[in-house]
C-alpha cells in the first residue's frame, strides 16, 4: 500500500511525504528439501498403504520418513511474516530562482517474525518430540539528507548545476529468538512455547552502524550536446576503526549527444546517437559492524549440570581494515536507427577493485580460522549489449525483438603476498575469485590397469585422477583449477509477434561456459537412499563415467571430481499464444476487451551436461541441487468491462 502527498505551501516552498506500507505472509516453505527427499526416497518402499492412507516410514527405515509427512500428518507449521514501512518526507525551498534547498528525511522500518513448529510425525523430527521456535527481528534505518542545488542556464547555451549534499544514515537491527522442544501439546504449535520441557536456545542480538556523507557535484552542459559531470564524495562508516573510517570517491563523466550536432540533424538513418565516457570510484563498506574490534564469542560447556559459559577471541581484530574501492572506466554508446526501429546501447567497462574486503582463512596454528581483511585487488572487464528492434511493423503483422548480451571476465590481480596464489583460500592470480579447485578426474581405473592402480593405492573401479606432480601417488599436489562459476557469456532473446488478433511471444535464454558442481553426481554409497541412475563401473561395464558403487564406503575417493560439469544451457523460458476477441464480437457483449491465452514456461531446454537427461533444473548460481526442471502451463482469459 502506498500513498503520496505533496503540499505547496507557498510559491517558494513545497513539502511532501510518501508512505509505503507492505505486509507479506508466507506459510509454505519454499526450500527444496522435500523435493530432494522425495527423489532420494528408496523406491523399494511404499509411501502409501493399500487403503490409501500414508505410511510414515515407507521403507521401514527410521531415517527415511514419508517425504510429504509434514502435509499428510499436518505436522508442520511455518509462518513467516514481514511488515515494512518506508516513510519519506521532504521540504523544498526555492531560496533564489536558481537556488534550491531540499531536506529529505526517511525512515525504513522492517519487522520480521518467523515461527515454526514440527510435530512428532514431521519429516525432520522422524518420530522425535515436537519442536517449535520463534524468531523476531526489528530493523530500522533512518536517512537524513540536506541538498543545496544551484541551477542556471547562461546565454541559453551553458547549463550549470552545482549540488552539495550532506547525509546521515543510521541502522539498527535487533533480533530475538527462542527454540524449544518436547512440547506437551503438539497442537499448541508455537503458541505456547513456555510449556515445553526443554529450551534448546534463547538468543538476542543488536547490530548498529552509521554512515556520514558529504558530496559535491558539478554538472555542465553545452547546448545539450556536450555534457560533463564531476563529483566528489566522502563517506565515513562506523564499521571501520578510527583511523580508517573515511573513504573518498571522485568521479567524472562526459557525454556527447552526437545527434544534436548540425551535421546529423534530421537524419533519417540516425535518430539517436550518444557517446558516454566515465571514470568513477565507488566504495564498499558492506561489512557487519564490530568486526575490526576482534570481539569475543560465547562458548558453551558445563560443570556437571551447571552452565560453564565462556568467552574467547574467535576473530582476529583487524584495526587496519579500510574501505574497499572500485574504479570503473566505462564507454557507452546509445543509438537509435531508422526512426527508432532499432534502439540499442553498448557498454564496455574496465573496473579495478582495490582493498577487496573478504574473509581470509588463516593457518589454524594461530588459533584463528579467519580474519576480515583487505585481501587484494581484482579486475573486471566486460561488455554489454542491448538491442531492441521493431523488425516488422505492419497494421496486421508486427514482430519485435529484444536482445541482451552480457559478458564479464573477472580476475585476481594481486593478493596480500603480491603475485603469489593463496591455495588455502583458493584464490589464484589471474583467475576469478570463486573457482573450483580439486582433483582432475581422467577416468576410472580399469581391470587391465590393476597393477598401475595399485601403485596409486587404488583398485579397478575407483576414480582415476590426474597425477599432476607425477610423483606416482595421489596427493594434495594433484589438485588444479577445474573451472569457475562465472559464465563466459549470457544472452537473452525475447520475440513477440502479432498477426491480426493473434499474438505470440517467446523468451529464450542461454548461459554459457560456467562450471557447475552437481552433488548428486557424487552419490554417497549405501542403500538407504535412491540415487540417479548413473553409468557406474562394474567389471562387465568398463565405463570411465562413474566409479564402482561400494556398499561399504560413504563416498568414493576423490568423489567430488566426478561431479563437475560444464553448466552451459539454453532454455525456452516462456512461450505464449493469445487471441484477442474481435471488436465485432465484443460489441455484442458487455465486455470492452477479452483475450484468451495459453502460455508455457520451460517448454524446452538443452544442457551441455547430462542434467537434461535427469530432467534437472539447470539454472543455479553455485552448486546444483536435485530440483526437477518444472514445466508450467497456464491458460487464461483477460477481460475488461
Amino acid at each position, binding site marked *: 500500500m502506498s500513498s503520496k502527498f505533496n503540499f505547496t505551501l507557498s510559491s517558494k516552498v513545497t513539502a511532501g511525504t510518501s508512505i509505503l506500507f507492505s505486509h507479506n505472509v508466507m506459510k509454505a516453505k519454499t526450500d527444496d528439501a522435500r523435493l530432494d527427499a522425495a527423489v532420494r526416497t528408496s523406491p523399494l518402499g511404499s509411501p502409501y498403504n493399500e487403503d490409501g492412507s500414508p505410511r510414515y516410514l515407507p521403507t521401514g527405515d527410521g531415517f527415511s520418513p514419508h517425504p510429504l509427512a509434514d502435509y499428510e500428518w499436518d505436522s508442520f507449521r511455518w509462518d513467516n511474516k514481514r511488515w515494512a514501512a518506508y516513510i519519506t518526507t521532504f521540504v523544498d525551498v526555492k531560496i533564489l530562482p536558481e537556488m534550491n534547498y531540499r531536506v529529505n528525511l526517511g525512515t525504513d522500518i522492517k519487522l520480521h517474525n518467523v515461527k515454526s513448529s514440527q510435530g512428532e510425525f514431521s519429516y525432520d523430527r522422524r518420530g522425535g518430540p515436537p519442536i517449535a521456535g520463534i524468531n523476531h527481528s526489528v530493523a530500522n534505518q533512518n536517512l537524513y539528507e540536506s541538498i543545496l542545488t544551484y541551477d542556471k542556464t547562461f546565454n541559453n547555451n551553458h547549463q550549470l548545476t552545482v549540488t552539495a549534499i550532506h547525509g546521515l544514515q543510521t541502522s539498527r537491527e535487533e533480533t530475538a529468538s527462542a527454540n524449544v522442544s518436547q512440547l506437551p501439546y503438539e497442537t499448541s504449535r508455537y503458541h505456547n512455547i513456555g510449556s515445553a520441557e526443554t529450551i534448546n536456545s534463547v538468543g538476542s542480538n543488536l547490530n548498529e552502524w552509521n554512515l556520514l556523507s558529504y558530496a559535491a557535484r558539478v554538472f555542465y552542459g553545452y547546448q545539450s550536446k556536450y555534457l560533463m559531470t564531476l563529483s566528489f564524495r566522502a563517506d565515513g562508516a562506523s564499521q571501520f576503526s578510527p583511523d580508517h573510517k573515511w573513504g573518498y570517491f571522485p568521479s567524472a563523466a562526459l557525454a556527447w549527444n552526437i545527434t544534436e550536432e548540425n551535421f546529423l540533424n534530421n537524419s533519417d538513418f540516425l535518430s539517436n546517437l550518444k557517446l558516454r565516457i566515465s571514470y568513477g570510484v565507488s566504495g564498499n563498506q558492506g561489512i557487519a559492524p564490530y568486526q575490526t574490534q576482534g570481539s569475543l564469542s560465547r562458548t558453551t560447556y558445563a560443570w556437571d549440570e551447571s*552452565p560453564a559459559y565462556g568467552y574467547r577471541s574467535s576473530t582476529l581484530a583487524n584495526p587496519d581494515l579500510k574501505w574497499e574501492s572500485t574504479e570503473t572506466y566505462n564507454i557507452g554508446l546509445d543509438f537509435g536507427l531508422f526512426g527508432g526501429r532499432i534502439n540499442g546501447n553498448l557498454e564496455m567497462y574496465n573496473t579495478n577493485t582495490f582493498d577487496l574486503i573478504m574473509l581470509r582463512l588463516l593457518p589454524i596454528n594461530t588459533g584463528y580460522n579467519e580474519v576480515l581483511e583487505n585481501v587484494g585487488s581484482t579486475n573486471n572487464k566486460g561488455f554489454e549489449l542491448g538491442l531492441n528492434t521493431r523488425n516488422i511493423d505492419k497494421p496486421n503483422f508486427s514482430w519485435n525483438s529484444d536482445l541482451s548480451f552480457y559478458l564479464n571476465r573477472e580476475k585476481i590481480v594481486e593478493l596480500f603476498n603480491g603475485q603469489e596464489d593463496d591455495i588455502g583460500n583458493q584464490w589464484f592470480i589471474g583467475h576469478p575469485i570463486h573457482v573450483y579447485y580439486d582433483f582432475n578426474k581422467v577416468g576410472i581405473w580399469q581391470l587391465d590397469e590393476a597393477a598401475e592402480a595399485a601403485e596409486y593405492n587404488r583398485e579397478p573401479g575407483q576414480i582415476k585422477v590426474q597425477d599432476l606432480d607425477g610423483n606416482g601417488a595421489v596427493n594434495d599436489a594433484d589438485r588444479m583449477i577445474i573451472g569457475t562459476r562465472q559464465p563466459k557469456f549470457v544472452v537473452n532473446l525475447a520475440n513477440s509477434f502479432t498477426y491480426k488478433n493473434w499474438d505470440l511471444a517467446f523468451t529464450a535464454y542461454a548461459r554459457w561456459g560456467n562450471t557447475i558442481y552437481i552433488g548428486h553426481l557424487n552419490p554417497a554409497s549405501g542403500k538407504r537412499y535412491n540415487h540417479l541412475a548413473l553409468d557406474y563401473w562394474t567389471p562387465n561395464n568398463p565405463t570411465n563415467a562413474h566409479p564402482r558403487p561400494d556398499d561399504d564406503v560413504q563416498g568414493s575417493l576423490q568423489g567430488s571430481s566426478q561431479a563437475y560439469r560444464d553448466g552451459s544451457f539454453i532454455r525456452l523460458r516462456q512461450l505464449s499464444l493469445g487471441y484477442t476477441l474481435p471488436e465485432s464480437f465484443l460489441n455484442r457483449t458487455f465486455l470492452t476487451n477479452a483475450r484468451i491465452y495459453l502460455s508455457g514456461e520451460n517448454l524446452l531446454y538443452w544442457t551441455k551436461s547430462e542434467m537434461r537427461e535427469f530432467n534437472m533444473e539447470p539454472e543455479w548460481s553455485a552448486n546444483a541441487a536435485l530440483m526437477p526442471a518444472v514445466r508450467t502451463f497456464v491458460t487464461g482469459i483477460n477481460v475488461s468491462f
Partner: protein
Amino acid sequence: MKTNIFIALLGFMTILLLEGCTEGFLEEENIRAPVADQHFTSSKGFNDLVNSSYQFLRSYYGKEEGHMMTTLGTDIWGAGYGSVQSFNNYDGGMAPGHGFYWNVWSGFYQGIATCNTIIGRASEVEDISEADLNIRLGEAYFLRAMYYHILVMHWGAVPLELEEVREVKTTATRTPENEVYEQIITDLLMAEQLLPPTQPDYGRATKPAAQALLARVYLTTNQNEEAATYAKTVINDYNFSLLDDFAEIWDIDNEQNSEVIWAVQYTRDERLNSGGNRSHLYFLMEYDFEPGLTLNINYGRSWVRYFPSRFFLNMLQETRWKDSRYEKVWKEVWYANNPNNLLPEQQLGDTALVVVPYSVPQEVEDAKADKYTIFDIDRIYDGENPIGKKSRWPTLFEKHTDPLRSSNINIEGSRDWFVFRLAEMYLIAAEALMKQDKASEGVIYMNTLRERAAWPGNEADMEITADQLTIDFILDERALELAGEMFRWPDLKRTGKLIERVKLYNPEARANIQETHLVRPIPTNMIDRITNKEEFTQNPGY
C-alpha cells in the same frame, strides 16, 4: 523574501544542529559482546576465558573424529559398513583432505590458543586472588598439555605455539616430537603444582588429573619410573577406588563414581550440550532391520561404525566364563519392539535377535527360525573375514548407550566422557613396572584389576604370575578393560605393536599398513593456508 531568508536560516541551523550531533557519530561501540583487552582483565572475564578453553575437548572425546582415529585400523576393531573404511584399511582414502583430521587439528589449535591467552594475560587480571589465579592457570597448563599430547600422538612433529597470536601470521613450523613432549611434561608439572586435589566445579582440571596425564605421557616417552610413580600416586593418594561391579562404572545415573579421575562434561541441558557425546551411535550394530525390531531410544541409533575383530570376539568368548567384563557391557540379545514385522511365533517383548561370538548348531537355528533371528559367529565371520554387509555383531553397549537423550533422533548424548579412570592407572603401573624389570610388583596391580573383573568365585582364575606379565598380555588386558574408550590405536602405537598386531589380526589393513602410518596426514587446510610450504612439509606417504 523574508520567509525565504527565514527558511534558509532554519535550514542552515538544521545542518549545524546535525553537525553537532555527528560528534561521535562514527564511533562504534559493541555493547552486546565484550572486547578481549577489556574483558579478560577482570576476574569475571578471565574466568570466562578459562571456561572457553574446555569446550574443544568436545571436538575429540565422544565424537566420531576421536573414535575413528583411535578405534579403526587396530587389532581389535574393524570397520562396519558405516565407517570410513580407509581409516581401517590404511588405503588411499586416509588422505589429508579428510575432514576428521581437520576437525581435531583445528579444534585443538583453537583450544591451545585459548590456553596461551590465559597464560599470557594472567598477570593483567586486576581483581582476582592469587590462589584463584593459580588454579585457573593450572587448568590452562593442563589443557594445553592435553591438547598437545593428542596432537603429537597422532601427527608426530606439530607446530608448538605457546603465545597468543595478536596479528596476522601465515607461517608455521613443525617442532620435533621430543620437544613437544618436553613442553607437555613441563606444562603438566606446572599444572600439578598449581591445581588442587578437587575443584568445587565438577569437571575442572584437578591435580590427580594432571598426575594421571603425567603417568600416561611418561609411559609414552618410556620414562617408566616416573610413569609408575605418578600412577601409584593417583591410586594411593586420593579417594578414588575401583568399583566392585564393572557394570556400575557405566551407570548413567552415577557418572561421578569413585573410579572416575576426570571426565569431559556432557549434560542433559541441551543449551549446554552443543556437540554432545555421540559415542552411543558408533559401536551399535544394525538391529533395526531385523524382524520384530525397530529403532527406539533404549536400543539407540545405529551408525554401524566399529566391528569387533574375530581376534577380539574370540578373546571375549574364551574369557567370558571367568571374566565378567564381556557380559556386563556387551549386548547379545534384543527383544521385540515392533508389532509390524514380527516373526510368525514372535510376540512383543519376546527375544527377537541373538548375536553371539560362538557357533550355534544349525538345528537350533532352524528350530528357532519362527521365533527369533540368530547371528552366530559363523554368520558373522568366515574365518577372520566378515561376512556380508558388515552390520551384525555382538555390541559393546553399556559403555556408550544413552537413553537419557530427549529423543532417539537427538544424537547429542549427555554421558560424561571418562578421560581418566582409575583402572588405567593400574594398567600403567603394571606396564611401567614391568618395563623396569619389576614385574613382580607390576603383577600386583594387574591382578587387582583382574580380580575386580572376575565373576564371583573366579578371582583365582583371573590371577596371573609375574612371568605372564608381558606387553602382549597387557595389550590384551587393555582390550578387555578399555575397549571403546579411545585407547586402542594410541596403545598399539605407544607399545610399538601397531604394525605387528594389525598384520596379525586385521585382514583388511594387513596388506597396506606401513611405518608411515604411525603418524596421520597433516590436514590439507593446514598446509594450504601457510606461506612457508617449502619448510612445513607433509608427513611422508600422504
